[in-house]
């Protein structure tokens, strides 16, 4: 749309006369020389600062007459100009002469003139300032009041958050900077010590659907629409490679186990991850998490390739496979679902045994690396150099040898640490399993295990008690097992230390041996309380059939009067055998070999006791009954 505008020149000539019929008679324009003369006359050569005041008084009248003269007596229009110039010349000449004389310093000396100091009254000044400030303050206050009013007005009338308020909130949590016309943010971990190369920049823009967000204020019920969906006036755009949801999947798997056992959906990924309506805070957090996972995986993959492991680590695509223990692999995978394949593609087969603890440890390890990158030790004394550790600082004066120095430079990689943690995890699991199954299998004696609540990611400790129900005061066998990364260490009752490998069978055998020993020891302890006498015992009996594991243990007990003898033999594989002999033998028949009765004190033949037919809750109870009966019958 355009309107025609006519451009007219303003009237240049003065109107001399208007005739009755309305015609305007213009003055003829001044010639160039005339106008120059006119302007020249207007120049006031004599006007200097000093004279301003004096002249001001007579100026008006004078100039009036001057101009009249100029117009009327136009005999010589340059006359006044010439006069003024001549005066000026005269003054300059005088000044030049004075300066010439003054320069000689013989006749004339120029002294600086003391300038009169202005007399100031401090109190007056203060009052004046105070008044001025009060005036300024009231103006500012009024302005701020006005702005506040309009702000609250706007807030009341608007449901969507203001872009700038949003930006302020964003600024409080994220690093932003302005690059020309765009606002760029950074969600990388660079400032906290990360050295990952991928950038994590995002752009902040105003939401484009301005009309949509602007419509609520006009509606009569702004509150209802706002509560329905609070749309943000701010939009963050994240680079495509950081979109979506990522996490590190960690699982330990056995060789023979099938890879795809379950197709569970991803944790927390029920909702499509890149919902356009998602709040920017969640969006940025998700993107930051993607970046973190990528860095973590990148680091692990790098280490997996570099590390010289006995069984080489494998890196295939987004998956790292490391052998933890023979037959057991640790699989670390980067799972990243982006918006493009969120619906079409099934989420990757997530196994039920995804190890959250190890995943958490991985995150923790990388954060530790970040922390170490930024937190360097301070030197003491303070003049020392920044950087070297306290240990390295001491290396010179303490004359550390080259091995110690080499040791200082060694650091464990993330992968090594996580493999160790996985190893320990497996070892702990196996130990738990062995102990639980033994406790289930063996009812007599009872096996109880106490796991220490305090443990480290690579070390834990379990205390085992072998005791018999009802007789735990008589005898109990304690064992302590330290579970390490690839081995077990068992500290036995007598202080012996047994080192075992990662094979669970070894622990199982050890526990069974200790069950046997416990039974024999417990019988002896019980015998002591019953007044019986232990004649002898052996933990490693050389007689009898060869045991598949360990040796049989046995003991001999005699009654208080010595006329009864009980023999107990415990074998790890079979049950306990108990035999009883009488002395003197009750049935003596002279034979060709043993002819006299005095030999009856040798003790008779051992006869087996059928324990399973006996009364009693458990082995010790039966033994107690047996001993009691044998004592009383004598």
């Amino acid at each position, binding site marked *: 749309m355009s309107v025609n505008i006519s451009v007219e020149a303003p009237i240049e000539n003065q109107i001399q006369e208007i005739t009755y019929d309305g015609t305007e008679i213009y003055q003829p324009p001044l010639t160039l020389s005339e106008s120059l003369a006119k302007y020249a006359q207007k120049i006031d050569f004599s006007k200097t600062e000093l004279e301003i005041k004096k002249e001001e008084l007579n100026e008006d009248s004078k100039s009036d007459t001057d101009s009249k003269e100029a117009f009327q007596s136009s005999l010589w229009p340059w006359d006044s100009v010439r006069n003024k110039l001549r005066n000026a010349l005269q003054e300059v000449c005088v000044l030049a002469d004075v300066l010439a004389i003054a320069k000689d310093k013989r006749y004339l000396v120029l002294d600086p003139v003391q300038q009169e100091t202005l007399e100031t009254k401090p109190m007056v000044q203060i009052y004046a300032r105070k008044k001025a400030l009060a005036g300024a303050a009231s103006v500012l206050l009024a302005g701020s009041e006005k702005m506040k009013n309009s702000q609250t007005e706007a807030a009341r009338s608007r449901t969507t958050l203001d872009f700038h308020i949003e930006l302020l909130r964003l600024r409080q949590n994220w690093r932003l900077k302005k690059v020309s016309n765009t606002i760029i943010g950074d969600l990388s971990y660079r400032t906290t010590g990360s050295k990952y190369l991928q950038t994590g920049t995002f752009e902040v823009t105003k939401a484009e659907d301005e009309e949509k967000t602007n419509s609520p204020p006009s509606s009569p019920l702004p509150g209802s629409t706002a509560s329905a969906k609070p749309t943000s006036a701010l939009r963050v755009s994240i680079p495509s490679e950081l979109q979506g949801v990522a996490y590190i999947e960690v699982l330990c798997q056995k060789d023979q186990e099938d890879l795809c056992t379950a197709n569970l959906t991803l944790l927390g990924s029920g909702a499509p991850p890149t919902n356009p309506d998602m709040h920017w805070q969640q969006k940025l957090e998700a993107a930051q998490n993607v970046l973190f996972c990528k860095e973590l995986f990148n680091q692990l993959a790098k280490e997996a390739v570099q590390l010289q492991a006995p069984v080489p680590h494998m890196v295939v695509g987004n998956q790292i496979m490391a052998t933890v223990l023979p037959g057991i692999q640790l699989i670390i995978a980067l799972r990243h679902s982006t918006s493009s394949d969120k619906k079409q593609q099934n989420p990757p087969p997530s196994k039920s045994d995804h190890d959250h603890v190890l995943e958490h440890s991985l995150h923790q390890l990388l954060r530790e690396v970040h922390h170490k990158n930024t937190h360097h030790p301070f030197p003491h004394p303070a003049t020392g150099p920044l950087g070297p550790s306290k240990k390295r600082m001491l290396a*010179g004066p303490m004359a550390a*040898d080259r091995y110690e120095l080499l040791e200082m430079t060694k650091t464990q990689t993330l992968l090594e640490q996580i493999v160790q943690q996985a190893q320990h995890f497996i070892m702990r699991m196996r130990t738990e399993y062995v102990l639980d199954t033994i406790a289930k299998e063996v009812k007599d004696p009872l096996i109880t295990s106490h796991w220490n609540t305090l443990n480290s990611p690579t070390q834990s400790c379990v205390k085992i008690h072998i005791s018999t129900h009802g007789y735990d005061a008589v005898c109990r066998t304690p064992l302590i097992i330290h579970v390490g990364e690839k081995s077990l260490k068992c500290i036995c009752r007598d202080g012996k230390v047994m080192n075992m490998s990662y094979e669970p069978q070894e622990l199982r055998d050890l526990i069974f041996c200790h069950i046997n020993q416990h039974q024999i020891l417990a019988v002896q302890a019980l015998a002591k309380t019953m007044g019986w006498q232990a004649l002898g015992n052996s933990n490693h009996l050389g007689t009898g059939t060869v045991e598949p594991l360990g040796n049989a243990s046995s003991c001999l007990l005699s009654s208080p009067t010595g006329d009864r003898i009980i023999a107990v033999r415990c074998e790890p594989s079979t049950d306990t055998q108990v035999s009883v002999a009488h002395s003197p033998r009750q049935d003596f028949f002279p034979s060709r070999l043993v002819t006299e009765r005095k030999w009856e004190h040798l003790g008779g033949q051992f006869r087996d006791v059928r324990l399973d037919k006996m009364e009693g809750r458990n082995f010790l109870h039966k033994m107690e009954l047996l001993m009691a009966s044998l004592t009383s019958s004598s």
Partner: protein
Amino acid sequence: MGVTILTQFALENKTGPQTVEVLSKRICALGAVQQGHFLVDCETYTSVPQLGHQRTVHVLHNSEQPATVFSLLDNGTKITALATDGLFDLLMMKMSQFYTSKKQTKAESKGLRYEIGDFYVKLGTVTVSSNYKGILVEVEYRPCVVPAMCWDLLKEFLQGFLGLTAPTNPPTYLQNRMQEVYTPIDTIHQYLEHFTMFRKSPGIYRN
């Protein structure tokens, strides 16, 4: 860190390299494995006359402690030892106005390093300002730090491959320190003792 014994060794009618070869054969026959090289050097600075009575600073480096510079200050009556970072050499250069280096006395012992069980053996060829002076054998017993407790063991070990010329008494420096904990600076003291002897000797030093 262990206890180290340093001893000079010479064979009749044999040159330095020949002697080292004989020893090397003997030690390898005992089952030693060669593990790299070693170098101990010593530079001596003396004070300028304006500083009063003369003092000497011996600056030694031992490749076994690569991060350390050892300095032994001899004022005629006693020796003060100091262990510092590698930059001490730089400081000595700055002090050239007060302490001047005598280049012709620069001594070093270098050669091969062997490991045999708990023992480290070093066969060093000693040169003073690049003139051959003799052979120094260093034996270190790692698991022990008190000389008195392992001297007999070390003596026996030394006799095992040095034969009858092996020392029968502990080095003079160690003799009144037998019950103290042995530190790397003690090795340096022994080296300095031997270097001083070599410097004084006119030619090839013989036991």
